[in-house]
């Protein structure tokens, strides 16, 4: 079957995957259908409830991109402090890294030649 990208142990066929996915979706829909239908559009049921307080406007409700994953960055603060300090944005430092990579790989190759 040409649709299979074989790779040693497993195979990957998106068509079979899609069929399986569709079957699972049908089953899920079946279970969902058996639930209780109480949802009505346009009533108080669908409005935002904030402990009776007045709901702020869209600008205030929006979670800003910079605030997403706050805890993740807080946990990895040390890693990020170190890694951001390396990204100086100065063009001279870019050349430094280039020369450093050249030097390190040259040393590695030299050691390999001397040892082997």
């Amino acid at each position, binding site marked *: 079957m040409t649709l299979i990208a074989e790779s040693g142990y497993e195979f990957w066929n998106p068509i079979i995957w899609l069929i399986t996915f569709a079957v699972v979706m049908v089953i899920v829909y079946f279970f969902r259908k058996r639930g209780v239908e109480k949802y009505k559009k346009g009533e108080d049921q669908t409005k935002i409830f904030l402990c009776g307080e007045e709901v702020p406007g869209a600008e205030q409700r929006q979670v800003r991109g910079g605030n997403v994953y706050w805890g993740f960055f807080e946990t990895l603060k040390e890693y990020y402090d170190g890694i951001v300090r390396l990204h*100086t*944005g100065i063009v*001279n430092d870019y050349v430094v890294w280039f*020369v450093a990579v050249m030097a390190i790989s040259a040393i590695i190759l030299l050691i390999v030649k001397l040892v082997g």
Partner: protein
Amino acid sequence: MIETLIRNFPLVAAVVLMGIGLYILIFKRNLIKIVMGITILSSSVNLFLVTLGYRTGGIAPIYTDAPEGLMVLPVVQALTLTNIVIAVATSALILSLVIRIYRHTGSLDSKKSRRMKG
């Protein structure tokens, strides 16, 4: 040892020039000096290439009224010429960018022209 060094003096000079060019690129923060560093780097490669084709006592590889004798290798000279042309284009472009950066930021310091970082 010394004799080899003297015989290969142009090659040594090319490597020294390359070191100077990289030094400027690494340690000099002035944008115009960075352009100079690139030009020096380019010259070092040119010197290296031309030296490769040199034969002791060789003459220019032009047949017009050429005397008898060895000619130097013309291929590397063609390569050098191409590199010179490219270097002219690069430095013209880079200088115009430097002028524009100066217009926007009012500074020629590479430490100050970093709106983008992190």
